[in-house]
């Protein structure tokens, strides 16, 4: 098993949930946070998950 596959999918799902939260409730804030932090951290997790999946695919092609 290539660990990058399940880890990649995990972060893609996590990122999608957070991006969804960020888009559906863009005004949701914690007491000390001024930005839509769910959206931004969700996007970074999507990118990280996508990167892991991409690396795993490249390894299979070789």
């Amino acid at each position, binding site marked *: 098993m290539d660990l990058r596959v399940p880890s990649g999918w995990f972060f893609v799902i996590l990122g999608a949930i957070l991006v969804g939260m960020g888009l559906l409730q863009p005004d*949701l804030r914690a007491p000390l946070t001024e930005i839509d*932090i769910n959206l931004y951290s969700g996007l970074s997790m999507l990118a990280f998950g996508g990167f892991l999946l991409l690396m795993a695919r490249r390894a299979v092609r070789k």
Partner: protein
Amino acid sequence: MKLAAVDYVILATYFAFVIGIGWMLRKKVSTSGDFLLSGRSVPVWITSLAFIAANLGAQELIGMAASGAKYGIMTAHFYWVGAIPAMLFMGIFMMPFYYGSKARSVPEYLKMRFDEKTRGYNAFTFAVMTVFSSGISMYALGLLLHLVLNWDFNVCVLASAAIVLAYTYLGGLTSAIYNEVLQFFLIVAGFAPLAILACAKAGGWHGIVSRLPANMTHSWKYMGSASQNPMGVELFGMVAGLGFVLSFGYWCTNFLVVQRAMAADSMSAARRTPLIGTIPKMFLPFIVILPGIAAVALAKMTGAGGAHLYDLPLKAGGTVKDYDQVLTTLMARFYPAGLLGVGLTGLMASFMSGMAGNVTAFNTVFTYDIYQSYIRKSAPDSHYLMVGRMTTIVGVALSIGAAYVARSYNNIMDLLQFVFGFVNAPLFATFLLGMFWKRTTAHGAFSGLVSGTVAASLTWGLTVAEGKGGIFGTLHTFPSVMAQNFWIAIAAFGTCFLVTVLVSLVTAPRTDRDMEGLVYGLTKIKHDEGAKWWQRPAPLAIFVSVLVIFLNIWFA
């Protein structure tokens, strides 16, 4: 703090993945070696991250944020003076003997190099220690989740133990290691935003520096005397006690971490495991310590209406600060529903990586060093695989028991942690002499270990720090418990070293032929000349050293 539905969804998704990974790996297990040692087949990037994740338990995470708030940037010494040099030493100098000797565990190496009694002493104390430390960490997590989320203590403890049991039982060490990597990623994903948000809110590093006393934002400047810095430790105690004895003792001899490197697929990969691990490790302080430091600055800032942005948490009904709650209370101030779920899941993940580390180290040492050595010597391998699996269940059950013991007898646990410190502190002297001085004899090693432990207990019993200790009288008073710990370690190491040398000189040495592959000078070490520089241990170690020296100077 209240969780929303989305936070529970994230937590559930994580649990599903953790068990799913165990389920997918279950077919890889057909021998005891597959189950307990991963069949020595894990890629190096995975062992490297698992190497640091196994140490990054919930107690470490909570404790580092707490120490950040209490001591400031000096806490980073645990990484930049403590862990990194020790990990480099382990990869460059010690791994060739661990991996090359084909020993299946650290106690087994002691048996090959010395004798049965040294192995037995180490195996037994290690087994007891891992059970208690995973129990204590389970207790700490259960208590915190109860305090912060009002979750039931029993449910927390039993549910998290059941999940760890499920995936380690299914896939053994491979499953524990693979999951540790996912857990490491999740810890970073869950806590990096907190560090960034808290630091930004406090006005960046400069804002923090301007609001905190200078001795909390400089790691070296106030090390000259113990009274000037918040930790109450002076330079020698820090460098020798923490940097040398305690850190080298932990990172170089604790099977919990050594086991991860030994699972690597080649000697070169095993040596590079701790070396590559140092790179993420040296930047972890920015994620685990920085939020604690920022919290102190935030507590001095006021928002609209004149209210403090953040108040350092207090112990129930008192005025004493409860630093252990800093991490979770900060999360509540900065994370909205969604990211809060990720943060809490990260906390659960750290707990699981620590506990799975303990359980997998426990079952290997029990199966090979206690069961196979003293209970049933020659049985077919399938029997030991079965014993390994059963030990996993027993190990988890014992940890749960230890968690409840910790809950009912808080002081006993303090004492036990001290006792384990005594057992562990001299170990590094034994390994140093055993691996690098071929004249070291088995009787020397054993008497050194025992007398080192006695020296540690005496130092503890004859000195006082913060009103504790001194049960045999008071010869010296330390400015802090931290300083006392460091000096206990120094005394243990020094005594063990001396006694081992003296006894070795008057007892009969082993022949060189018996020690091939076990001792420096009698072992051929390959240097991987053809490989690229980052694939070779020595250049990699030099690169890491430069980076860590730079970090030390930057925050001096």
